């Protein structure tokens, strides 16, 4: 039997072939040919991974690693960097998510992008993105990961600004660019620090060094982790580097689904898992990660409540969910983080595709206040969307329930009840905006007078497949009450020697978990149900109320009888808070800081180039000043 693992490079080369063929035929191919080639490229890679899976599983747990060194890139002293691929259970999960969601989104895009002038270009970028994402995930060292990291970033800018005739799209591309540079600076410095300290960038070797006695101060390791964390925060849109993600929704919807929800933005979590041996040595970094994750999760959930644009709601929700993953990583529960990542990839992909279908059907309308009653008109979309929302909110049998619960349990186990409460509040908020979204957009009366487009089959089936997966993926989280779930035991080889930070959980802890889980589950169901009802039945009132918020008298008069309390206590402050969050913090402080950095360097640039006055005299003056300064330096140093 031929060993698939020796053909590991095919995983990257198949999509790359798609890129090359389509590039060669960019002007010649018709849409059909391009789309078939692109989908085949990704599909064959997916198929190949599935072929790989049995071989992978047939190995004993401790040996479940395929690694191939394709080429020795450079060696400098003890430092050796290879173009090498590493497929262990962690990267296998990532590859599966990337290829599976990616493949469905490719199929979906065929119809979504049909007739667009840049159709061929779009598919080239999409395939290219898959290539870089696979490089990122499969790389066996930090530098190669960085190659993929930059590559996916590049594709992301290209795709955000895909419809560049829109000015907002170009601005969004630029914003994403600037913010990500901050993260990249951290990443580069982190890699440099690791090279200086350990003289290797290979993950396996790093793990070995960590497990053996190395005598390196934990503060240096901590500094390296912190720098890499900054990189991860930039790519994964964590507070306060999250500002680019909501704006990134200017791109075509399949892009939002693929890059800005399911795959690329999760790279930060993946990176943190990859450096878990380092993190386990520098434990004082973990609380930082948890803090970042929970702050992001809470903050983004609040912001999501106040959004009107359906894609922005989902974008903030993505930020929030990635915050959960960070919290899991920061609690030492890497497997829970990855589980949530996989589940989130599926249901958020589903949600974005559903939103795309809605937007497509409504001729480009994105404001949820103007939607309504879509469940009657787009039944398939509505049903799948509901499943996605329920998974997101964490309703019992769906995947989101298991993954979110695992994360919350991890936080509780490591940091106690207070942080758990923060997570729990976020979960409730999630349910709240899920309910609002469904209530406003899908149930109730229709506001939309035009006849919606019908949804093509190529768009519908990916939704159904994803919805099915979102519904049943929770099985992997079984059995419920132990740490050794199916998923976790699959992942365990990647984290040997890492997760035993926390001692085995006792039976009483299981009881605690069960109780917490039940509380959370019931609360979430209650909230989502009430909100959905509230928004669908009293839609006008809610909307008018939100609209007229500052006028308190009107507010009381028009207040909802049934949900008055809820309104007064929750909605009003929340509405204000959400508005503040998204308006004030985002636009004033963070945008201000981001733009400010840009502006300062621009002003500095302006100043510097205004020295270039065009007068020869000035130029010579600069020259002679240089001579003077250098002479003074030299004589001064010479005199000692």
């Amino acid at each position, binding site marked *: 039997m031929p060993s698939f693992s020796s053909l590991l490079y095919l995983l990257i080369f198949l999509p790359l072939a798609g890129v090359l063929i389509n590039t060669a035929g960019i002007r010649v191919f018709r849409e059909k040919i391009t789309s078939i080639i692109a989908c085949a490229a990704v599909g064959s890679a997916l198929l190949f991974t599935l072929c790989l899976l049995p071989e992978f599983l047939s190995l004993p747990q401790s040996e479940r690693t395929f690694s191939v060194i394709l080429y020795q890139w450079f060696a400098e002293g003890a430092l050796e960097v290879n173009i090498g691929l590493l497929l262990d259970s962690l990267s296998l999960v990532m590859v599966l998510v990337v290829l599976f969601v990616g493949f469905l989104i490719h199929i979906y895009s065929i119809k979504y992008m049909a007739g667009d002038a840049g159709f061929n270009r779009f598919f080239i970028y999409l395939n290219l993105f898959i290539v870089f994402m696979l490089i990122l995930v499969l790389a066996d060292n930090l530098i190669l990961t960085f190659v993929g990291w930059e590559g996916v970033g590049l594709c992301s800018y290209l795709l955000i600004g895909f419809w560049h005739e829109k000015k907002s799209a170009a601005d969004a591309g630029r914003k994403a660019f600037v913010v990500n540079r901050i993260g990249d600076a951290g990443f580069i410095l982190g890699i440099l620090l690791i090279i200086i300290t350990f003289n290797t960038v290979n993950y396996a070797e790093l793990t070995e060094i960590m497990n053996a006695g190395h005598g390196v101060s934990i503060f240096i390791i901590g500094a390296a982790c912190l720098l890499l964390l900054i990189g991860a925060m930039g790519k994964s849109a964590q507070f306060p580097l999250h500002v680019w993600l909501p704006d990134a929704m200017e791109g075509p919807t399949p892009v939002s689904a693929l890059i800005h929800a399911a795959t690329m933005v999760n790279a930060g979590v993946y990176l943190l898992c990859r450096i878990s041996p380092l993190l386990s040595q520098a434990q004082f970094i973990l609380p930082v990660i948890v803090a970042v994750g929970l702050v992001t999760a809470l903050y983004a959930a609040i912001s999501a409540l106040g959004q009107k644009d359906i894609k922005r709601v989902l974008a903030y929700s993505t930020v929030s969910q990635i915050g959960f993953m960070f919290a899991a990583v920061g609690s030492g529960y890497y497997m829970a983080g990855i589980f949530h990542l996989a589940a989130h990839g599926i249901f958020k992909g589903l949600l974005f595709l559903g939103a795309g279908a809605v937007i497509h059907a409504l001729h480009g309308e994105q404001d949820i206040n103007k939607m309504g009653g879509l469940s009657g008109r787009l039944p398939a979309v509505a049903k799948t969307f509901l499943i996605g929302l329920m998974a997101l909110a964490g309703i019992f049998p769906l995947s989101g329930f298991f993954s979110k619960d695992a994360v919350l349990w991890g936080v509780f186990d490591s940091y106690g009840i207070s942080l758990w409460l923060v997570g729990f509040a976020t979960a409730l908020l999630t349910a709240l905006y899920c309910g609002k979204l469904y209530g406003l957009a899908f149930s109730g009366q229709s506001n939309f007078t035009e006849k919606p487009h019908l949804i093509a089959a190529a768009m519908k089936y990916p939704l159904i497949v994803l919805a099915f997966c979102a519904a049943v993926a929770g099985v992997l989280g079984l059995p419920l009450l132990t740490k050794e779930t199916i998923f976790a035991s699959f992942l365990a080889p990647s984290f040997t020697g890492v997760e035993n930070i926390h001692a085995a959980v006792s039976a009483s802890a299981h009881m605690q978990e069960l109780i917490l889980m039940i509380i959370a589950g019931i609360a979430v169901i209650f909230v989502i149900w009430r909100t959905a009802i509230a928004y669908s039945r009293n839609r006008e009132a809610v909307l008018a109320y939100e609209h007229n918020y500052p006028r308190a008298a009107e507010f009381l008069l028009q207040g909802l009888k049934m949900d008055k309390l809820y309104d007064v206590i929750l909605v009003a402050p929340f509405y204000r808070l959400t508005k503040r969050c998204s308006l004030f913090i985002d636009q004033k402080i963070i945008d201000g800081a981001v733009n400010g950095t840009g502006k300062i360097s621009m002003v500095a640039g302006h100043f510097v180039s205004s020295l270039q006055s065009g007068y020869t*005299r000035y130029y*010579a*003056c600069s020259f*002679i000043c240089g001579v003077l300064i250098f*002479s*003074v330096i030299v*004589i001064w140093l010479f005199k000692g």
Partner: protein
Amino acid sequence: MIEQAVFWILSIIMVVSALGVIMMKSAINSVICLLLTMLSLAGVYVLQGSYIVALFQIIVYVGAIVVLFLFVVMLLNIKNIRREVAVDYRNFIISSLAVLTVAGVVCILWYALRLSMPEAGGDIVPAAAGVKEMALELLNRHLLALELVSVLLLAGAVGALLIGRKE
């Protein structure tokens, strides 16, 4: 004693005429001042005993370069360029800054010189170097430099032709 007197006279002439080069309003006067500077410099060379250098100073600088300048100034017949000493305040600031900087550079140079040669500095004995020694030196050890100068002159000539020619 007499040498000292000659040195001081020559250097005063030189400095004054050098100042004249950069302060005369009309270009032609500047060129004449440069001529004076060159001549007094040749005198200083004689004082040092470098007769051959002094000779070439007169032949090359006075005989060729200054004449070339005069020729161009007269060719262009520039009348309307008067009073171009800087008046614009920005120019004035930058100019005074530059003058200060130049003064600073010279001070540093002087300081370095004092550091390097703390003793008063050996007297310069006028000891004539013969033409023969110099020629042998030039054509033997510095042959390459000499050839390079010829290449430089060729490039300069071609360049001058190329630029100076009318369209």
